[in-house]
C-alpha cells in the first residue's frame, strides 16, 4: 500500500460520486433503474472505504469475518424490510 495506490482509490471514489451526481438529473428517466445504479455505486464506494482505508484487506481471515458478517446480516434484514414496505403500498 503506497501513495500511488491510495491516490488511485481517491480518483475512483470521486469518479463514482460524479457519476451519481450526473445521472441524478440527466440521462435516465426510470426511477427504479436510477435507484439500482445508486445503490450499486454506494456499495462499491463502501467496499473501497472499508477494505482499503480501514485496511480490513490486510487483516487475518477470522478478523475479516468478524467485521464483515454482522454487516452482511444487517444488509439482509434491511432488504427484507424494504421488500415488506413495498408490498404494503
Amino acid at each position: 500500500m503506497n501513495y500511488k495506490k491510495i491516490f488511485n482509490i481517491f480518483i475512483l471514489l470521486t469518479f463514482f460520486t460524479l457519476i451519481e451526481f450526473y445521472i441524478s438529473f440527466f440521462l435516465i428517466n426510470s426511477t427504479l433503474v436510477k435507484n439500482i445504479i445508486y445503490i450499486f455505486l454506494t456499495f462499491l464506494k463502501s467496499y473501497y472505504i472499508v477494505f482499503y482505508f480501514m485496511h480490513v484487506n490486510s487483516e487475518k481471515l477470522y478478523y475479516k469475518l468478524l467485521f464483515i458478517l454482522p454487516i452482511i446480516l444487517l444488509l439482509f434484514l434491511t432488504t427484507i424490510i424494504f421488500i415488506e414496505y413495498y408490498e404494503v403500498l
Partner: protein
Amino acid sequence: MNDIHLNKINHQNWKLMMWLFLISDIFTFCGFINVFFALRLNSKTIWPNGDIVFTYVPLIGYNIPLAFVTIMTFILIMSSISMYASTYEYKKSKKINSLIWLFFTILIGIMFIFCQSLEWIHLSNKGYWFGKIPIGHNVNYSNIFFAITGFHGIHVLIGIMINIFIFIKIYLEKRMHSYNFLNNAGLYWHFVDLIWVFIFTFIYLI
C-alpha cells in the same frame, strides 16, 4: 497483578473494541434510515424531492441541484485520504509528516462542518426546520432530515475533537508509542466518511 495484566493489552484487542463500537454505531444509523423510509412510504401528503430542495450553492449566483452536497462528499473523501496518509507516515516513524497530514485532516473536517451549517442556515431561511415545512408538504421530512444530518454532524465534531487531542499528544511525546490510538482515531474518521456516503445516497439522491 491485574493492573500489570491490563497494561499489556495488545493492539489486536484495541482494534477489536473499536470495531465493536463501530458496528453498534452502524446499527444506530440503520435505524435512522429505516425510519426515514417508513415515514416516506406511508406519507399521505407530498414528500419533497431532493432535486428541488437542495439547489443552493454558496458563492455561485445560480442554483444547481445537489451540487453542494457532491462538493461536501468530495471534501469528506479528501479528509479520509489525509488521515490515511497521517497513519501511514506515523507507521514509518516520520513524526513531522504525520503531524502535517493530521493538521490538514482537522482543517478539512472543520470545513465540512462549516459547509453543513451554511446549508442548514439556508434551509431554515427557506422554511425548513424541526416541525416546519413549506405548506402542502409532509412535515416528517424536515424532522427526520435534520435529525439524521445533525447526528452525523455531531459525529464529525467528535472526530475533530479526537483528532485535535491526538495532535497535541503526538506533538508532546518523546518516543513514538501512540500508533494504536492514531489508528483507532483513523478508523473512526473513515467510519464517519462511510456513513456520509450512505446518507448521500439514501437521503439526498433516492
